[in-house]
């Protein structure tokens, strides 16, 4: 493996950052646009989210990759400001390069650069905090001068709104902002802000549904949990409802390389075992069965005969969420019983889904977009806004002891 030795100079740094800056620059601000990435496979990605755009670029130069790592670390701790980071960094390096003229030199020498680096570090460690606290923060504090419930709401609205406007087009920003705030408020009720945002943030995968083919304006917030599967067997039920959560099939699960010893009445015996298990469920007065796998035909028949609603092929993450949120009476692994408020059928843009009412404040965010690429962006931005709000809220809460 050949190792290339490259002399790192300020010139190199500026030229490596140049392309990154030019890509990110076009996405910044209210007049900014999006970047469209395409692959030969036809996959497209549209984004104006700084971190996403930079992560999607294939960066070969080690310096560029190092900068990207810094961007990601910054995004992880603050959730925002990645484009500003790159632009400030580029501008700073260019200013240093240009200031060589002021010192009447052609360029900076290495020892001089090291000296400058040390002085910059000292500035940031000792003096930058003071400057921000005394010169910048007073402008922000007019929003934070009193602690009241109303204040909490508006801060969050601004956090979400700021995050969204920087990452989606003007057309969608209004709608997404409104829907995300609605999602937050409906999920909140008695909990405090930090708990709510942290809850939404950690369970976002389960608490959102995607619908392609409709305009973004059709996005909405629905009560309870939405499962993007239609009921295999449906009956009208009135709550409260006992639901059984299943992670495996009722029928005899036959793996590979099993030799079944065929005795007399084998088939009828397996059927009767299944029947016994099902009869036990009836004793428990279970009205709904939620299964993560496909159940055999006899289970469907049993469900139809006994007016039990059955939902198959549910995402196991959603089932785990249901179990955890409900403090179930555990029967025996792998079966759990949870209580549901209600069960409904739902139509989302032509897709038939199931809606489960749960005894908690969780709501589902239904995100719509005309095309899958745009849908990915919308979901990503929504998820990110929760992350960003979480980070932003944490620092706000720390500083103002809310």
């Amino acid at each position: 493996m050949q190792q290339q030795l490259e002399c790192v100079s300020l010139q190199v740094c500026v030229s490596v950052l140049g392309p990154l800056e030019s890509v990110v620059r076009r996405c910044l601000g209210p007049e900014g646009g999006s970047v469209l990435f395409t692959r030969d496979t036809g996959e497209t990605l549209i984004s104006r989210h700084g971190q996403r755009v930079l992560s999607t670029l294939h960066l070969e130069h080690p310096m560029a990759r190092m900068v990207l790592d810094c961007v990601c670390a910054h995004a992880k701790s603050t959730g925002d400001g990645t484009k500003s980071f790159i632009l400030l960094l580029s501008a700073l390096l260019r200013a240093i390069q240009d200031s060589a003229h002021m010192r009447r030199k052609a360029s900076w020498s290495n020892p001089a650069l090291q000296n400058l680096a040390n002085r910059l570090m000292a500035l940031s460690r000792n003096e930058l905090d003071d400057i921000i606290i005394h010169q910048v923060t007073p402008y922000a504090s007019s929003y934070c001068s009193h602690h009241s419930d109303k204040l909490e709401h508006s801060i969050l609205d601004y956090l979400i709104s700021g995050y969204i406007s920087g990452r989606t087009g003007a057309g969608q920003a209004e709608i997404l902002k409104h829907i995300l705030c609605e999602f937050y408020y409906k999920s909140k009720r008695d909990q405090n802000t930090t708990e709510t945002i942290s809850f939404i943030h950690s369970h976002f995968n389960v608490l959102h549904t995607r619908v392609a083919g409709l305009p973004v304006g059709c996005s909405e917030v629905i009560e309870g949990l939405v499962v993007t599967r239609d009921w295999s067997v449906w009956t009208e039920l009135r709550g409260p409802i006992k639901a059984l959560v299943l992670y495996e099939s009722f029928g005899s699960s036959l793996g590979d390389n099993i030799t079944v010893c065929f005795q007399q009445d084998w088939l009828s015996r397996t059927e009767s075992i299944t029947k016994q298990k099902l009869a036990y469920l009836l004793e428990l007065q279970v009205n709904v069965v939620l299964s993560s796998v496909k159940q055999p035909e006899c289970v469907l028949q049993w469900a139809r005969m006994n007016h039990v609603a059955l939902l198959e092929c549910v995402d196991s993450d959603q089932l785990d969420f249901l179990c955890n949120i409900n403090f179930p009476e555990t029967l025996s692994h792998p079966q759990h019983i949870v209580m549901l408020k209600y069960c409904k059928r739902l139509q989302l843009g032509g897709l038939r889904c199931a809606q489960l009412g749960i005894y908690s404040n969780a709501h589902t965010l239904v995100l719509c977009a005309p095309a899958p690429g745009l849908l990915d962006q919308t979901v990503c931005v929504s998820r990110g806004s929760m992350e960003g709000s979480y980070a932003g809220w944490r620092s706000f809460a720390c500083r103002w002891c809310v």
Partner: protein
Amino acid sequence: MSEPLLKLISTALQHHTTRYSDSGLFMGIFTLTLIENTKKYGLRTSTAIKVYKHLVEQCNVYLKGDSCGCKVPVEFSSCDSLVALAHSMITSKPACMLDSRETQQISSLITQAFLYSIPCNSSGTACFGRTVTIGIEGQSVNHSSVFPGLLLDVPEMLLPGDLERLGDGPFKVVLFGVSLSGDISEVGDVALEVHRGLNPERDLLQQLLKIGEQVVKDKVSLFACQKVVHPVLQHYLREHEVVVIERLGLALMEPFAKITGARAVASLFSLVPMEAYGLVAGLCFQDCGSKKLLQLLSSKHAAISTMVLCHRNETMLEELKMTCQRAEHVLRLTLREPYALLGGGCTETQLATHITHMNQSTAPTTAAALGISHSEFLMAVESFRSSLLAVALSLEHDGQDCLIDLTYGHRWVMDISSQTEVKHTCGCGLLEDRSNLEKTHLNTACQTFSPVFLENNDTQPKVLDSFSAKLNALNVAVEMASLVLDVKYIIKDVN
């Protein structure tokens, strides 16, 4: 489709047509002309996006409001509007190769099937019915028809005499959802170790015959199975005058269950429960052209009907089937929103006129509210207007002139070559030509005016478009155009 932006638009278009089955072309043309016009008028993209969003909201309000001139309520008491909707859907698909008489016949068949599928007199929650479509190749389109109930292929060895022997209905029915072939390999992909002296297949067959005995004892007349039935069982049942239908298929299980009220049995080793039996009101043979089919009539007013479509060859038949399904989908959408929009380009012209007129007077305030200049706002409105009119223009394929009248805002086609004194109507057929109706060419600038709202009109429009489909197409088109205009950088991964 190599150009990534075009691919994005076409994906959105495909998703829209999957949902709504109509107005896909409208959406495509409108999106592309919006983008083109924005560039042509040299508008800043952020300005254009803001203005288009504002205008599309106005369109939504206008179209959903009460005094909308291009909206026609769909009355379910008379089927004229439904037939007109179906007719417009079919005429927009020339690949079906239907002449005008055939088009009229198919439109009324579609409407008939749709009306059959609306349940009536049902207690509890009404459940929407279904239309099953069967295609017969090689026959003239005139032989197509709609039958209530379900039509199935006639089982082998079933003769008219057998049906006569059954007598009059209702007949008891049993439905099996599992395979009755007696095949041990159904168990799964495992190795079986069989003890000496055991014959699993024989045991299974004995069990199947037990089922047969029970079914005969319970006086069942129709035995249906989703999959294959063992020939010995079939023979036994036929001897006892039970009609056997095998290989029903998964697609027909649900309509069959709805028509008869039978519940599919999945167990081979227990008695068939009494609740699993269903009833069918009648069984008879039906002739469709030269093919014979078995008709099952429901005793429960189940909203199931079968549409038999005939066409000369397979390609045209497939196209016709798809068109009919789409047309029925469009008719179903009217149940949610019982309106239709005027077709033939008249909605586009009216909408364009109305929007321009509305924004003329309020331009300064709106522009200030959006944070842009007055002239930019007006240019964006003009771009929106000409995009709408471009769609109306694209409807004319024969190079004739397209005109718009300055009173009602409808679209007219100037037929220069016509010599006869034929009463000329507008694109949708609602208005008749009058000598004092001033018109001008579509793609010229003209005085803005507010289109006159036609009240209490006796004539019905002849060409209608789906309301939900067009509204969604309008919204999605503006969103896609905004998305494409927003893109400032394209990075291609060439690997």
